[in-house]
């Protein structure tokens, strides 16, 4: 379970996230969408512990991120939009480092299985400079899944992936949710969000402006057609605020 209550984060005079609250149940996939500068990345960075919030409470798998960060982070996997891999570590080295950090039992077998699943077995001794962007992204997903997290945060997970890898990624997200993982997927690819997410939160100017299943949020905008897709919902929800 992921819970964010009254999150506030400012940069100087600019309030990037303004009293934002969200809750993602186990097995649920939340799509986080919003225009550029809406506060998505800041929210995800606060959620994953990269930057501390000014105020608010974040809980991951029942552990408060501020009071018990190690337990909270142990249950979380964060996949940033830009894969950050260490120049000098091979794929295998990196997975072993992650395994130690997250105390993964039977790590080698599990790493081999995941590498196989993501067609990376023959790249296990490659350095990041020898991997394409898509391969790096897949390696980040493998590392994220290695410790069987209870919550996952994916920022633009499909960027740089080929169609086969995109399909694989979508299947992975759905499969993880089916295992009871709480997931937040942030993306500008609204088709993806519409396809895989159970719930959608549209954030704008640091606040959640709409939150719920697509049908629910669509019904909150009576001027839209009944069959309006997420793109239309998104445009309508954010245009009034501009």
């Amino acid at each position: 379970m992921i819970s964010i209550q009254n999150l506030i984060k400012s940069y100087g005079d600019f309030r990037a996230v303004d009293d934002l609250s969200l809750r993602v149940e186990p097995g649920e996939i939340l799509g986080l969408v919003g225009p550029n500068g809406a506060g998505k990345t800041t929210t995800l960075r606060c959620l994953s512990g990269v930057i501390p919030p000014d105020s608010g409470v974040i809980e991951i798998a029942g552990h408060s991120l501020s009071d018990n960060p190690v337990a909270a982070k142990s249950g979380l996997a964060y996949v940033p939009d830009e894969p950050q891999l260490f120049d000098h570590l091979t794929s295998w080295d990196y997975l072993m480092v992650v395994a130690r950090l997250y105390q993964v039992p039977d790590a080698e077998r599990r790493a081999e299985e995941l590498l196989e699943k993501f067609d990376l077995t023959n790249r296990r001794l490659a350095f990041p400079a020898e991997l394409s962007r898509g391969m790096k992204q897949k390696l980040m997903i493998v590392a994220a899944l290695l410790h069987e997290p209870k919550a996952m945060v994916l920022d633009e997970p499909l960027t740089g992936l080929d169609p086969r890898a995109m399909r694989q990624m979508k299947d992975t997200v759905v499969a993880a949710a089916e295992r009871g993982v709480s997931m937040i997927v942030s993306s500008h690819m609204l088709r993806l969000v519409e396809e895989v997410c159970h719930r959608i939160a549209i954030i704008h100017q640091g606040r959640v402006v709409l939150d719920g299943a697509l049908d629910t949020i669509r019904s909150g905008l009576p001027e839209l057609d009944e069959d309006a897709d997420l793109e239309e919902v998104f445009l309508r929800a954010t245009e009034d605020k501009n």
Partner: protein
Amino acid sequence: MEALLHPALFRLVIQSFVGRIRRSLRLAKQPKYLFGALVGFAYFGSLLINHIPFNRGPSRGLDAAGDDLFFGIQVMAAIAMAVYLSFAWAFLPKRPSFSLREPELNLLMTGPLSRRQVLQYVVFKSIPGILLSVIVLSVFISRGSPLDKAVQGVGMFALFWLWDLHSKAKSLWRLRLDELPPWKARFRRSVMFGFLALFWVVTVLALVELGKVAYEIISQLEAFNEEALGGIVRGIRERYEESYLRYLLAPLVWLTGPYFLREGSVLSWSWLYIFGVVAAHYLWVVTSKTRFEELLLERERVRAMSGPGKRSARFLRLKENHRVKQPFKLLSQGRREVAVFFKHLVLLTRRSWLFFFLIWVAVVLFCVALQVVLGSPKGLRITMFVIGIVAITVFPSFGAMMWGNGFRKDLRYFETLRTWPLTGRQMVRGQIMAPYLQTCAAILLGIGICLGAELGVILANVLDRSMATSIIPEDLLAHAAVPSLVVMLGLIATVIPITLSVAAVSTVLEATSVLLFPGWVLASEKGRGDIASMGQKILLSVGFALFLGLGLLPGGLILAGVFTWHHFADIGFQWWELPILSLLCSVPLLIEAWLMTRLGGKLWDKMDPSQEILEGFS
């Protein structure tokens, strides 16, 4: 009209330079950056103020040496240039000596620009940097009147630009060889090597002749004084001017002309020559037919994929059998911070502990063998002793600042590190372990060299009765009244606790300074060369030294206390007390290191580097 840079590209060059300056000014709005900039300016200012008085007249050293020596230095400079150029041409790397960033490549390659215009941009892009270097250097090394300085500044600019153009031209020439038919490439290569070989055969023969002249003059000298020196130099110059070497080196001698202008001889015809060579090089570069675009694109692709670090190329060269090696087997269970330690250790080496132990043993044995074989000469003993002592004294204090791993390097992975399930203290411990271990290894190497030297002395004395004296001070040996090996072991037992404790303090202090000033460290790591960054570097270094001094104070106080007690109680100091004293002094240092680790942990936990770090790398 394609002789000069396209106006739009000229604007781009200027705007890029102005943008860098603006960025520095914007950063200075933050107090710590402003402070850093002020310190940087103060540092530069003090250098200038200290330097200007020496620039108010001709160089005293050179003028006192006379015209002949002055000329001799110019010829030596020309020979040095010839040596450098020969090596540079003989070992031409197969890569362009210039780079274009991705936005530049996108703009230049897709824009309606000719190849010549792209190459002109490549050439002119370097000019603001060259100009800046010339302005700074002119103040420091030019001499004479303001007009002389200005003229020398222009000369320096011409020479620097020529150097830059030459490096571009030769790299384009090398790359062109790969595009030519093999026979043509071979022919060009042969001509180049043939020219170099001929040049050096003739030059060396002429230099030998000059050497003979010098020898003849020296052998007839009765006393060596200023007058004799003048005679030698004059004799060599006369012979030089008669020989063909004069014509051989003339093109290079003329190039250095602006540096060797005498007072009152501001204008020289060598200017025409220099500008002619610059113009020829300019045309050489901008009319090159070499297809460099793909290489630049590939280089940029690799750079983008591997991040700003330049070291990735080193790892890519590793063969598969080396990639599977690890310094130790990282199990998935156990203390989490060991993962960070492992990560940093792999950055240094993939070799095992045993390998390094064997290296250490080999160093000790080498020192022993060298002493024995050479009969333990005094010079060798002193050299080994000094090398060992330098390692033992320098690395504990400054090792952490020298190594290429630790928090400093990890800042650019900040976004990943912060998500790891580690407490602040665990993170700090993980970050300091590898640099600390490296420092310890360096200290042990120093100890090994001293130990090897002493064992060598002992063995040499046993084997051939060399009567060599120990590297341990005689007073200490006499006072101890035990064999020198026992004293050496006692000294090692003294050195180990204290140096390892000092290393612990300095390593943690280095990590703490990174956590306190991540923005400054980041700027330094990114290689930003502006004046604010320089000031920040100075402040960090000075602050580190100051706090290290303060940190070592408790140990020093204990030492002083014990000595004072011995003095006033009139108790003789025994050599075996040294290891105990060392242990005693180490205790407060280790406590300090422990406390600083806790402080560092808190800093890590509370750090909010939203803008300084995250935006710095975006």
